[in-house]
């Protein structure tokens, strides 16, 4: 489905670009003069040691933080400031480092919540849950069921997410992001705290999402092995500065990256 607003971007063209962006909290420069782009259809990784500014970067992209300097161009539209709900409406969805779901609600309801932006009937009809609102809900439910099938979480459809193990919560969160039918999916450490099997499952899902829905994915990840296997291109941050950008192989052999990860004698 075409995301509302903005012109179409062909596969391989730049979907989002970040130019000379800087962000400071008081005297601390979290992101310093960083530029990179995300092409449509690719899996783009942002990596770096702790405190490198990865999450800040993600928060800038989806409009949660406003950079003091620089420009962000999404689908050809350049903006200095974007608010999270604009980002969502524009087709950017995300998951969080610490799962942010409605814990008392079932997996199904959580994923349905991801459809909110796509529901057109007003509150009055939705409260009545009758007539056109009912028809609309059925349509959305069908889409949600496709996602449930896709992520293979049928057995936890009716389980409150608070009762689920962490790995499954992460999957539900991914489901909610997918329910928005985003053009750009931002994943903040999708594998954090997972065991090997869960990591492999999650990698499979990310690849499938990219392949099946053609969704562009930008992800932050700690696990180097996972990043190198999954991504098409990698950008490396260290202390808020971009130190490398390229294919996994290029990045792997980059001396600055090796130094940043392994440390150097000063």
């Amino acid at each position, binding site marked *: 489905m075409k995301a509302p607003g903005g012109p179409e971007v062909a596969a391989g063209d730049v979907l989002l670009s970040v130019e000379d962006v800087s962000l400071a909290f008081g005297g601390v420069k979290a992101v310093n003069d960083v530029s990179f782009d995300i092409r449509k259809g690719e899996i783009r990784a942002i990596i770096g040691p702790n405190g490198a500014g990865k999450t800040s970067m993600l928060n800038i992209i989806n409009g949660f933080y406003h950079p003091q300097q620089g420009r962000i161009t999404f689908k050809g539209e350049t903006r200095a400031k974007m608010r999270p709900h604009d980002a969502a409406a524009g087709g950017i969805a995300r998951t969080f480092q610490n799962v942010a779901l409605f814990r008392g609600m079932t997996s199904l309801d959580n994923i349905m919540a991801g459809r909110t932006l796509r529901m057109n009937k007003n509150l009055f009809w939705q409260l009545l849950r009758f007539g056109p609102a009912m028809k609309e809900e059925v349509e959305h439910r*069908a889409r949600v069921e496709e996602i449930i*099938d896709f992520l293979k979480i*049928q*057995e936890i459809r009716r389980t409150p997410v608070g009762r689920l193990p962490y790995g499954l919560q992460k999957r539900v969160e991914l489901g909610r992001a997918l329910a928005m039918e985003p053009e750009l999916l931002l994943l903040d450490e999708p594998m954090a705290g997972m065991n090997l*099997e869960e990591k492999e499952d999650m990698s499979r899902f990310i690849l499938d999402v990219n*392949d*099946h829905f053609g969704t562009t994915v930008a992800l932050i990840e700690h696990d180097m092995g996972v990043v190198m296997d999954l991504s098409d291109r990698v950008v490396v941050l260290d202390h808020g500065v971009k130190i490398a950008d390229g294919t996994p192989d290029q990045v792997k052999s980059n001396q600055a990256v090796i130094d940043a990860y392994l440390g150097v004698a000063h």
Partner: protein
Amino acid sequence: MAFDASALADTFPKLLLRNARLYGARPSMRHKDLGVWQTWTWAEVLEIVRAYATGLHRLGVRRGETVAIVGSNRPKLYWSVMAAQTLGAIPVPVYADAVAQELSFVLAHADVRFALVEDQEQIDKIQSVKDKLPKLEWMIYDESRGLRDYDHSHLRSMEDVIADGRKALAADASLGAWLDAEIAATKGSDPSIILYTSGTTGTSKGVVLTGERSIKAASDTVVFDKLTEKDVALAYLPLAWVGDHYLNYAQGLVSGFCMACPESAETVMSDLREIGPSFYFAPPRTLEVLLTRVMIRMEDAGALKRKMFHYFLGVARRYGERILNGQPVGLAGRLLYGIGNILVYGPLKNTLGFSRVRVAYTAGEAIGPDLFAFYRSIGLNLKQLYGQTEAFLYITAQPDGAIYSDTVGPACPHVDIRIAENGEVLFKSPGMFSGYFKDDAKTAEAMTPDGYVMTGDAGYFDEKTGHLKIIDRAKDVGKLTDGTLFPPKYIENKLKFYPNIREVVAYGDKHDFVTVMINIDLTAVGSWAERNNVVYASYQELAGHRQVYDMIEKHVAETNASLAADKMMAGIQIKRFLILHKELDADDGELTRTQKVRRGFIAERYATLIKALYDGSKEADISTEVTFEDGRKGVISARVKIRDMAVVPAMGQAA
């Protein structure tokens, strides 16, 4: 009566034609897809199977050849079986969770050119062993996900094959007549299916079953249990297991009942509740897991509910079984049971999905008397049967009203049973196999000269009830050094009836005394640990915990006491035991795919532990290779403690 017509139909494709004629508008199959139950009537299934068979024929499937079917219970895979049989080809179902090596053995042994599979997982598995399968030409899949970028020169989706067949049938009217002739040409004496045994005893063998015999056997049990086209069964048992092919596929086609396929293997519990089957089969282990889960949840319930639950379970224990068996029960008892039914048993059965079950069977292993009595006392008509693949399942089954937990019932209609001198059970039955595929030597080995099949099980007819009792595998019955008869399974089953114990392996043959290795049940012991503030980080740590050992020691002591009560068994009391540091697993070859322990293999793998059990050491070190679910291997090491047990003097014997 509906099944009269089965006398006319000697193959499953002919039965399908008959069902479409008799029950055309009735549901034949249901499947939950994208959260909604989809239904196909018998007429619709016939149309699909005809199109599918035509499509397969156009790809090259020919009469008499084998076709592999790999996957879980999905309508398209059942239709694959039907479509293959329609063409006179022989379906060979393979367990969906078989590892690549097992899969390649069956596919190579059966000479398949076509593999009809569920999804990418199975295709990847087959492709990883492709060099061992030179004959394999085509793979046809149900679920297209992840397969878009695969080379499709020898890959098709079932949907495309069916669509292709449908188009061809529409374009050429003579094709329909040809297909009718193909169905008419299927012969009841030809092989209808080849079911590979799970391999409890070495490599698996292909059991060839013919259509005529299969249908005869199924007709007998359909009459025995009064199954009709109005019944519903949940098809959740492994497709490649004789149980599924018999209970669901064969009985379904004979009686015309509806088979419901679960959404996925994980959703079986909720699907059961939604479908509310009237015919149900579950191995004892499944029933045990269900009961454990209910009991654990009751522990967390409020005090009032818990009291009510336990009070009415007591009432059920007193009157339930007698009411179910139609025996006289006083008015007060009936009244109490009635109240219990409204307050406890009814809601409980509803939660478990048993509300509409009219006939339920369990088989495969001995069932604990308490477990068996529990289900019967809450009003579930649970019965036992005894059978095997070579018999096309049924050898004995318990008739309504004559149910005992320690017997498997009298011989089924038209089944002839004989007990050999060494105690082995021999039988002749309407559904018995025609031989092992490509293995006449093994076929001859399994039969007596006068045509009885040797089951390999030791048993005897109980004098009181006239029912058959099975004690162990005939070849597993060993002897202690003093000559005492030692049936390991008898001891293992006694211990396994404790909810805290998941698996037991007993040793004693050619030794001075009996020892056991125990696997704790993580659900039950984990919940106990939580309630008793026992802290643990892993299965291994919990298994080695001192308090867990204390608890298991109590169970072993009770088992010894109960063994002592039986004069025959007093000599095989357990002298030493240990708790294993890892769960026995089919992926490591320790269990068969049907979850039976492979005692010999385990003895080799844990040789150091067995040595320690007999040399008097207090603990032993062990490291074992394990296979993870993704196929990688790793090593688990542990130090396992061993405990000594006191032996209870035999009853009525001077100490």
